[in-house]
Protein backbone atom coordinates (compact mmCIF):
# COMPACT_ATOMS: atom_id res chain seq x y z
CA UNK A 1 0.00 0.00 0.00
CA UNK A 2 2.89 2.36 0.45
CA UNK A 3 4.25 4.94 -1.90
CA UNK A 4 7.10 2.80 -3.05
CA UNK A 5 4.78 0.23 -4.57
CA UNK A 6 3.61 2.63 -7.21
CA UNK A 7 4.96 2.43 -10.74
CA UNK A 8 8.06 4.49 -11.23
CA UNK A 9 6.63 6.88 -13.79
CA UNK A 10 3.98 8.07 -11.37
CA UNK A 11 6.54 8.73 -8.69
CA UNK A 12 9.30 10.97 -9.92
CA UNK A 13 11.83 10.92 -7.14
CA UNK A 14 14.31 13.73 -6.80
CA UNK A 15 17.93 12.63 -7.12
CA UNK A 16 17.29 9.15 -5.93
CA UNK A 17 20.56 7.30 -5.45
CA UNK A 18 20.81 3.54 -5.69
CA UNK A 19 20.02 1.93 -2.37
CA UNK A 20 16.48 3.07 -1.65
CA UNK A 21 14.19 6.00 -1.96
CA UNK A 22 14.42 7.22 1.57
CA UNK A 23 17.64 5.60 2.68
CA UNK A 24 20.07 7.22 5.04
CA UNK A 25 21.75 10.30 3.73
CA UNK A 26 19.46 10.77 0.76
CA UNK A 27 17.37 13.88 0.22
CA UNK A 28 14.11 13.44 2.16
CA UNK A 29 11.72 14.90 -0.34
CA UNK A 30 10.12 13.64 -3.48
CA UNK A 31 7.94 15.11 -6.12
CA UNK A 32 4.66 13.69 -7.29
CA UNK A 33 1.29 14.70 -8.68
CA UNK A 34 -0.97 16.45 -6.21
CA UNK A 35 -3.92 14.34 -7.34
CA UNK A 36 -1.99 11.23 -6.60
CA UNK A 37 -0.90 12.20 -3.12
CA UNK A 38 -4.33 13.42 -2.13
CA UNK A 39 -6.00 10.29 -3.45
CA UNK A 40 -3.41 8.11 -1.81
CA UNK A 41 -4.07 9.74 1.52
CA UNK A 42 -7.81 9.65 1.07
CA UNK A 43 -8.13 6.07 0.06
CA UNK A 44 -5.96 4.73 2.83
CA UNK A 45 -7.68 6.52 5.64
CA UNK A 46 -11.33 6.10 4.78
CA UNK A 47 -13.50 6.43 7.81
CA UNK A 48 -16.68 4.48 7.39
CA UNK A 49 -19.99 5.64 8.76
CA UNK A 50 -21.78 2.40 9.57
CA UNK A 51 -25.47 2.83 8.90
CA UNK A 52 -26.34 -0.66 9.99
CA UNK A 53 -29.95 -1.64 10.44
CA UNK A 54 -30.55 -5.36 10.07
CA UNK A 55 -28.82 -8.66 9.41
CA UNK A 56 -26.25 -7.13 7.10
CA UNK A 57 -25.06 -4.94 9.96
CA UNK A 58 -24.02 -8.08 11.83
CA UNK A 59 -21.82 -9.05 8.91
CA UNK A 60 -20.45 -5.53 8.87
CA UNK A 61 -19.56 -5.94 12.54
CA UNK A 62 -17.97 -9.26 11.74
CA UNK A 63 -15.92 -7.53 9.05
CA UNK A 64 -14.70 -5.04 11.63
CA UNK A 65 -14.01 -7.67 14.29
CA UNK A 66 -11.03 -9.91 14.84
CA UNK A 67 -11.15 -12.33 11.95
CA UNK A 68 -11.58 -9.97 9.04
CA UNK A 69 -10.21 -6.78 10.56
CA UNK A 70 -11.15 -3.82 8.41
CA UNK A 71 -8.35 -1.89 10.10
CA UNK A 72 -5.96 -3.43 7.60
CA UNK A 73 -7.45 -1.07 5.04
CA UNK A 74 -7.17 2.06 7.11
CA UNK A 75 -10.73 1.82 8.36
CA UNK A 76 -10.26 0.96 11.98
CA UNK A 77 -12.09 4.02 13.04
CA UNK A 78 -15.75 3.35 12.56
CA UNK A 79 -17.02 6.87 12.68
CA UNK A 80 -20.41 6.88 14.31
CA UNK A 81 -20.74 10.56 13.67
CA UNK A 82 -21.48 11.38 10.04
CA UNK A 83 -19.57 14.62 10.29
CA UNK A 84 -16.25 12.84 10.53
CA UNK A 85 -16.95 10.13 7.99
CA UNK A 86 -16.01 9.51 4.38
CA UNK A 87 -17.87 6.37 3.38
CA UNK A 88 -21.46 5.62 4.23
CA UNK A 89 -21.99 1.87 4.51
CA UNK A 90 -25.71 1.28 4.39
CA UNK A 91 -26.10 -2.27 5.63
CA UNK A 92 -29.56 -3.68 5.91
CA UNK A 93 -33.17 -2.93 5.24
CA UNK A 94 -34.31 0.65 4.97
CA UNK A 95 -38.02 1.19 5.53
CA UNK A 96 -39.70 4.40 4.46
CA UNK A 97 -39.78 5.50 8.06
CA UNK A 98 -35.99 5.45 8.11
CA UNK A 99 -35.52 7.07 4.70
CA UNK A 100 -35.33 10.68 5.89
CA UNK A 101 -32.82 9.65 8.55
CA UNK A 102 -30.57 8.10 5.94
CA UNK A 103 -30.93 11.15 3.74
CA UNK A 104 -30.07 13.48 6.56
CA UNK A 105 -27.02 11.48 7.59
CA UNK A 106 -25.82 11.56 4.01
CA UNK A 107 -26.30 15.31 3.90
CA UNK A 108 -24.39 15.73 7.13
CA UNK A 109 -21.32 13.99 5.77
CA UNK A 110 -18.72 16.40 4.43
CA UNK A 111 -17.45 16.18 0.87
CA UNK A 112 -15.83 14.18 -0.54
CA UNK A 113 -17.99 11.22 0.37
CA UNK A 114 -18.87 7.84 -1.00
CA UNK A 115 -21.69 5.39 -0.34
CA UNK A 116 -21.73 1.62 -0.26
CA UNK A 117 -25.02 -0.20 -0.41
CA UNK A 118 -24.52 -3.51 1.35
CA UNK A 119 -26.88 -6.36 0.72
CA UNK A 120 -29.91 -7.09 -1.39
CA UNK A 121 -32.29 -5.08 0.77
CA UNK A 122 -30.32 -1.86 0.66
CA UNK A 123 -29.65 -2.23 -3.03
CA UNK A 124 -33.07 -3.25 -4.28
CA UNK A 125 -35.42 -4.05 -1.45
CA UNK A 126 -34.52 -7.73 -1.60
CA UNK A 127 -37.32 -10.08 -0.63
CA UNK A 128 -39.15 -7.21 1.00
CA UNK A 129 -41.17 -5.91 -1.90
CA UNK A 130 -43.79 -4.65 0.54
CA UNK A 131 -45.59 -1.53 1.61
CA UNK A 132 -43.06 -0.36 4.16
CA UNK A 133 -39.73 -0.81 2.44
CA UNK A 134 -37.64 1.49 0.30
CA UNK A 135 -36.91 -0.36 -2.94
CA UNK A 136 -33.23 0.41 -3.11
CA UNK A 137 -31.49 3.24 -1.31
CA UNK A 138 -30.48 4.73 -4.64
CA UNK A 139 -33.91 6.31 -4.60
CA UNK A 140 -32.76 8.25 -1.53
CA UNK A 141 -29.02 8.85 -1.88
CA UNK A 142 -26.45 8.34 -4.65
CA UNK A 143 -24.63 5.04 -4.34
CA UNK A 144 -21.10 4.26 -5.51
CA UNK A 145 -20.79 0.54 -4.93
CA UNK A 146 -23.44 -2.13 -4.54
CA UNK A 147 -22.40 -5.24 -2.67
CA UNK A 148 -24.75 -8.08 -3.56
CA UNK A 149 -25.67 -10.89 -1.22
CA UNK A 150 -28.09 -11.67 1.52
CA UNK A 151 -26.03 -10.97 3.52
CA UNK A 152 -22.77 -10.39 1.68
CA UNK A 153 -19.87 -12.10 3.35
CA UNK A 154 -17.34 -9.86 5.11
CA UNK A 155 -14.98 -10.56 2.25
CA UNK A 156 -17.63 -9.15 -0.06
CA UNK A 157 -17.87 -5.97 1.92
CA UNK A 158 -14.13 -5.62 2.01
CA UNK A 159 -14.02 -6.11 -1.74
CA UNK A 160 -16.66 -3.41 -2.14
CA UNK A 161 -14.63 -1.04 -0.03
CA UNK A 162 -11.54 -1.82 -2.06
CA UNK A 163 -13.52 -0.88 -5.14
CA UNK A 164 -14.18 2.48 -3.50
CA UNK A 165 -10.45 2.81 -2.95
CA UNK A 166 -9.95 1.96 -6.58
CA UNK A 167 -12.48 4.58 -7.57
CA UNK A 168 -10.73 7.21 -5.46
CA UNK A 169 -7.44 6.40 -7.12
CA UNK A 170 -8.90 7.48 -10.43
CA UNK A 171 -10.46 10.68 -9.17
CA UNK A 172 -9.20 14.10 -10.21
CA UNK A 173 -9.31 17.03 -7.88
CA UNK A 174 -10.20 19.24 -10.80
CA UNK A 175 -13.25 17.14 -11.60
CA UNK A 176 -14.44 16.75 -8.11
CA UNK A 177 -17.08 19.42 -8.22
CA UNK A 178 -18.82 17.95 -11.21
CA UNK A 179 -18.66 14.40 -9.95
CA UNK A 180 -20.53 15.15 -6.76
CA UNK A 181 -22.80 17.93 -7.80
CA UNK A 182 -25.83 17.87 -5.57
CA UNK A 183 -27.63 20.41 -3.56
CA UNK A 184 -28.38 19.01 -0.14
CA UNK A 185 -30.78 21.79 0.64
CA UNK A 186 -32.99 20.75 -2.23
CA UNK A 187 -33.16 17.10 -1.34
CA UNK A 188 -33.66 16.70 2.34
CA UNK A 189 -36.17 19.43 2.70
CA UNK A 190 -39.41 18.45 4.30
CA UNK A 191 -42.26 18.04 1.85
CA UNK A 192 -40.33 18.24 -1.36
CA UNK A 193 -42.82 18.06 -4.18
CA UNK A 194 -43.30 15.00 -6.34
CA UNK A 195 -41.46 16.18 -9.44
CA UNK A 196 -38.43 17.11 -7.41
CA UNK A 197 -38.26 13.74 -5.75
CA UNK A 198 -38.67 12.03 -9.09
CA UNK A 199 -35.94 14.09 -10.65
CA UNK A 200 -33.58 13.51 -7.75
CA UNK A 201 -34.19 9.85 -7.50
CA UNK A 202 -33.81 9.05 -11.17
CA UNK A 203 -32.95 6.58 -12.49
CA UNK A 204 -35.64 5.25 -10.28
CA UNK A 205 -33.88 2.49 -8.42
CA UNK A 206 -32.94 -0.75 -9.97
CA UNK A 207 -35.90 -2.79 -8.94
CA UNK A 208 -38.13 -3.96 -11.73
CA UNK A 209 -41.65 -3.25 -10.66
CA UNK A 210 -41.48 0.39 -9.84
CA UNK A 211 -43.64 2.82 -11.67
CA UNK A 212 -42.70 6.42 -11.83
CA UNK A 213 -46.23 7.72 -11.93
CA UNK A 214 -46.99 9.63 -8.82
CA UNK A 215 -50.42 9.75 -7.38
CA UNK A 216 -52.38 8.42 -4.50
CA UNK A 217 -54.43 5.93 -6.51
CA UNK A 218 -51.99 4.16 -8.79
CA UNK A 219 -50.48 1.10 -7.17
CA UNK A 220 -48.14 -1.34 -8.75
CA UNK A 221 -49.68 -4.02 -6.58
CA UNK A 222 -52.18 -4.67 -9.33
CA UNK A 223 -49.39 -5.66 -11.71
CA UNK A 224 -49.18 -9.00 -10.03
CA UNK A 225 -52.75 -10.03 -9.30
CA UNK A 226 -51.52 -13.27 -7.72
CA UNK A 227 -50.08 -11.39 -4.85
CA UNK A 228 -53.34 -9.73 -4.03
CA UNK A 229 -54.87 -13.01 -2.96
CA UNK A 230 -53.35 -14.21 0.24
Amino acid sequence: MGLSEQPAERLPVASSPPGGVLGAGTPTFLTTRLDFVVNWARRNSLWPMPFGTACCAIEMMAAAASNFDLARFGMERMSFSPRQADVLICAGRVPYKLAPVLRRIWDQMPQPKWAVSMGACASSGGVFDVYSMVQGIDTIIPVDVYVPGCPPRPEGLIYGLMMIQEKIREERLSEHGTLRAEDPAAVARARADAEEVLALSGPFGNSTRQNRVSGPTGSDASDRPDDRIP
Partner: protein
Amino acid sequence: MPASTTVEALRAAFPDAVVRDLVQSGDQQVVYIDPSRNAEVLDWLRTDPGERFNLLVDVTAVDYGDGRPLEVVYQLWSIPHRRALRVKCELPLSRLAIASVTALWSAANWLEREVYDLFGIEFRGHPDLRRILMPENYAEGHPLRKDFPLRGRFSRAEQTRRALSQDMEQYYMPDEMEGRGAPQLVPADESATSGSGSQGR
Protein backbone atom coordinates in the same frame (compact mmCIF):
# COMPACT_ATOMS: atom_id res chain seq x y z
CA MET B 1 -61.67 -33.65 24.44
CA PRO B 2 -63.79 -32.29 27.30
CA ALA B 3 -63.65 -28.63 28.15
CA SER B 4 -60.89 -27.86 30.60
CA THR B 5 -61.51 -26.88 34.21
CA THR B 6 -60.76 -23.28 33.32
CA VAL B 7 -63.60 -23.14 30.85
CA GLU B 8 -65.98 -24.74 33.32
CA ALA B 9 -65.01 -22.26 36.01
CA LEU B 10 -65.31 -19.42 33.53
CA ARG B 11 -68.77 -20.55 32.47
CA ALA B 12 -69.81 -20.76 36.08
CA ALA B 13 -68.52 -17.28 36.88
CA PHE B 14 -69.72 -15.58 33.68
CA PRO B 15 -72.59 -17.66 32.30
CA ASP B 16 -73.51 -15.10 29.64
CA ALA B 17 -70.07 -13.76 28.70
CA VAL B 18 -68.65 -17.00 27.33
CA VAL B 19 -69.74 -17.34 23.73
CA ARG B 20 -68.17 -20.68 22.88
CA ASP B 21 -65.09 -22.72 23.56
CA LEU B 22 -63.10 -25.14 21.47
CA VAL B 23 -59.83 -27.02 21.42
CA GLN B 24 -57.38 -26.36 18.61
CA SER B 25 -54.28 -28.13 17.35
CA GLY B 26 -54.70 -31.04 19.70
CA ASP B 27 -54.53 -29.49 23.13
CA GLN B 28 -54.87 -25.72 22.93
CA GLN B 29 -57.86 -24.34 24.77
CA VAL B 30 -59.63 -21.42 23.12
CA VAL B 31 -62.50 -19.42 24.60
CA TYR B 32 -64.59 -16.88 22.74
CA ILE B 33 -65.97 -14.21 25.01
CA ASP B 34 -68.29 -11.26 24.67
CA PRO B 35 -66.16 -8.32 23.51
CA SER B 36 -68.05 -5.87 25.66
CA ARG B 37 -66.97 -7.70 28.82
CA ASN B 38 -63.38 -8.54 27.96
CA ALA B 39 -61.71 -6.49 30.71
CA GLU B 40 -63.96 -7.97 33.37
CA VAL B 41 -63.41 -11.57 32.29
CA LEU B 42 -59.67 -11.15 31.82
CA ASP B 43 -59.36 -9.53 35.22
CA TRP B 44 -61.11 -12.49 36.79
CA LEU B 45 -58.80 -14.90 34.94
CA ARG B 46 -55.81 -12.92 36.14
CA THR B 47 -56.72 -12.76 39.80
CA ASP B 48 -58.87 -15.79 40.58
CA PRO B 49 -56.77 -18.03 42.84
CA GLY B 50 -57.76 -21.11 40.90
CA GLU B 51 -56.68 -19.64 37.58
CA ARG B 52 -53.98 -16.97 38.08
CA PHE B 53 -53.24 -16.30 34.42
CA ASN B 54 -50.77 -13.65 35.47
CA LEU B 55 -48.60 -13.42 32.35
CA LEU B 56 -50.14 -11.70 29.36
CA VAL B 57 -48.09 -13.31 26.64
CA ASP B 58 -49.55 -11.65 23.58
CA VAL B 59 -52.31 -9.49 22.24
CA THR B 60 -52.94 -9.66 18.55
CA ALA B 61 -55.71 -9.72 16.00
CA VAL B 62 -56.73 -11.80 13.02
CA ASP B 63 -58.49 -10.62 9.89
CA TYR B 64 -60.04 -13.46 7.91
CA GLY B 65 -61.17 -11.26 5.06
CA ASP B 66 -64.52 -11.54 3.22
CA GLY B 67 -66.15 -9.17 5.66
CA ARG B 68 -65.89 -11.63 8.51
CA PRO B 69 -65.42 -10.12 11.96
CA LEU B 70 -61.93 -9.35 13.19
CA GLU B 71 -60.74 -11.37 16.14
CA VAL B 72 -58.74 -9.93 19.00
CA VAL B 73 -56.62 -12.69 20.52
CA TYR B 74 -55.19 -12.73 24.02
CA GLN B 75 -52.62 -15.40 24.86
CA LEU B 76 -52.46 -16.02 28.58
CA TRP B 77 -50.12 -18.10 30.67
CA SER B 78 -50.40 -18.94 34.31
CA ILE B 79 -46.97 -19.13 35.88
CA PRO B 80 -48.19 -20.75 39.13
CA HIS B 81 -50.44 -23.35 37.47
CA ARG B 82 -48.46 -23.81 34.24
CA ARG B 83 -51.48 -23.52 32.01
CA ALA B 84 -52.15 -21.68 28.81
CA LEU B 85 -55.36 -20.17 27.55
CA ARG B 86 -56.31 -18.32 24.42
CA VAL B 87 -59.13 -15.82 24.76
CA LYS B 88 -60.74 -14.37 21.67
CA CYS B 89 -63.21 -11.59 21.05
CA GLU B 90 -64.98 -11.16 17.74
CA LEU B 91 -65.45 -7.59 16.56
CA PRO B 92 -67.75 -6.81 13.63
CA LEU B 93 -66.16 -4.58 11.00
CA SER B 94 -68.67 -1.87 11.74
CA ARG B 95 -67.59 -1.50 15.36
CA LEU B 96 -63.85 -2.01 15.71
CA ALA B 97 -63.48 -1.00 19.32
CA ILE B 98 -62.79 -2.89 22.51
CA ALA B 99 -61.80 -2.01 26.05
CA SER B 100 -58.10 -1.79 26.74
CA VAL B 101 -56.50 -4.11 29.28
CA THR B 102 -53.51 -1.88 30.04
CA ALA B 103 -54.87 -1.39 33.53
CA LEU B 104 -54.53 -5.13 34.15
CA TRP B 105 -51.16 -5.71 32.52
CA SER B 106 -48.69 -2.99 31.51
CA ALA B 107 -47.47 -5.40 28.85
CA ALA B 108 -50.66 -4.70 26.92
CA ASN B 109 -49.61 -1.12 26.26
CA TRP B 110 -47.39 -1.63 23.23
CA LEU B 111 -49.15 -4.77 22.08
CA GLU B 112 -52.45 -2.93 21.81
CA ARG B 113 -50.79 -0.02 20.08
CA GLU B 114 -49.44 -2.43 17.53
CA VAL B 115 -52.87 -3.93 16.91
CA TYR B 116 -54.29 -0.43 16.55
CA ASP B 117 -51.56 0.50 14.11
CA LEU B 118 -51.79 -2.57 11.93
CA PHE B 119 -55.51 -3.38 12.16
CA GLY B 120 -57.18 -0.16 13.13
CA ILE B 121 -58.90 -1.58 16.19
CA GLU B 122 -59.49 1.11 18.76
CA PHE B 123 -58.70 0.23 22.37
CA ARG B 124 -60.90 2.33 24.58
CA GLY B 125 -59.20 3.60 27.69
CA HIS B 126 -55.69 3.10 26.36
CA PRO B 127 -53.41 5.80 27.78
CA ASP B 128 -51.43 6.46 24.62
CA LEU B 129 -53.04 5.07 21.51
CA ARG B 130 -50.78 6.11 18.63
CA ARG B 131 -49.24 4.35 15.69
CA ILE B 132 -46.17 2.46 16.82
CA LEU B 133 -44.57 0.81 13.80
CA MET B 134 -45.74 2.93 10.91
CA PRO B 135 -44.89 6.61 10.72
CA GLU B 136 -47.29 8.92 12.48
CA ASN B 137 -48.42 10.50 9.23
CA TYR B 138 -49.00 7.20 7.43
CA ALA B 139 -52.04 7.71 5.28
CA GLU B 140 -52.51 4.43 3.48
CA GLY B 141 -54.53 2.69 6.15
CA HIS B 142 -53.93 -0.30 8.36
CA PRO B 143 -51.53 -2.71 6.67
CA LEU B 144 -52.50 -6.08 8.10
CA ARG B 145 -56.11 -5.82 7.01
CA LYS B 146 -56.93 -8.19 4.18
CA ASP B 147 -58.10 -5.42 1.89
CA PHE B 148 -54.71 -3.73 2.09
CA PRO B 149 -52.49 -4.58 -0.89
CA LEU B 150 -49.07 -6.02 -0.13
CA ARG B 151 -47.22 -3.09 -1.67
CA GLY B 152 -49.39 -0.41 -0.18
CA ARG B 153 -51.99 1.78 -1.77
CA PHE B 154 -49.73 4.46 -3.19
CA SER B 155 -47.18 4.18 -5.95
CA ARG B 156 -43.55 3.76 -5.00
CA ALA B 157 -42.75 7.29 -6.11
CA GLU B 158 -45.49 8.69 -3.96
CA GLN B 159 -44.35 6.58 -1.02
CA THR B 160 -40.80 7.85 -1.44
CA ARG B 161 -42.02 11.40 -1.65
CA ARG B 162 -44.04 11.05 1.51
CA ALA B 163 -41.17 9.35 3.28
CA LEU B 164 -38.73 12.11 2.47
CA SER B 165 -41.21 14.71 3.52
CA GLN B 166 -41.57 13.26 7.01
CA ASP B 167 -40.79 15.75 9.65
CA MET B 168 -37.62 14.62 11.35
CA GLU B 169 -38.02 17.07 14.16
CA GLN B 170 -41.25 15.52 15.33
CA TYR B 171 -41.45 14.94 19.06
CA TYR B 172 -38.56 17.22 19.78
CA MET B 173 -40.72 19.64 21.65
CA PRO B 174 -42.47 18.68 24.87
CA ASP B 175 -45.79 20.11 23.74
CA GLU B 176 -45.73 17.75 20.79
CA MET B 177 -45.32 14.80 23.08
CA GLU B 178 -48.42 15.65 25.06
CA GLY B 179 -51.99 16.23 24.16
CA ARG B 180 -52.21 14.49 20.85
CA GLY B 181 -55.96 14.52 20.99
CA ALA B 182 -58.26 11.66 20.26
CA PRO B 183 -56.85 8.96 17.99
CA GLN B 184 -58.11 8.93 14.45
CA LEU B 185 -58.72 5.66 12.74
CA VAL B 186 -57.33 6.86 9.42
CA PRO B 187 -55.90 10.34 9.40
CA ALA B 188 -58.12 12.18 7.01
CA ASP B 189 -55.45 14.57 5.86
CA GLU B 190 -51.92 13.66 6.71
CA SER B 191 -50.75 17.21 6.13
CA ALA B 192 -52.62 18.21 9.23
CA THR B 193 -50.47 15.95 11.39
CA SER B 194 -47.09 16.60 9.85
CA GLY B 195 -47.19 20.00 8.28
CA SER B 196 -46.70 22.06 11.38
CA GLY B 197 -42.99 21.72 11.97
CA SER B 198 -41.79 21.80 8.41
CA GLN B 199 -41.64 25.52 7.92
CA GLY B 200 -39.59 26.52 10.88
CA ARG B 201 -36.35 24.79 10.00
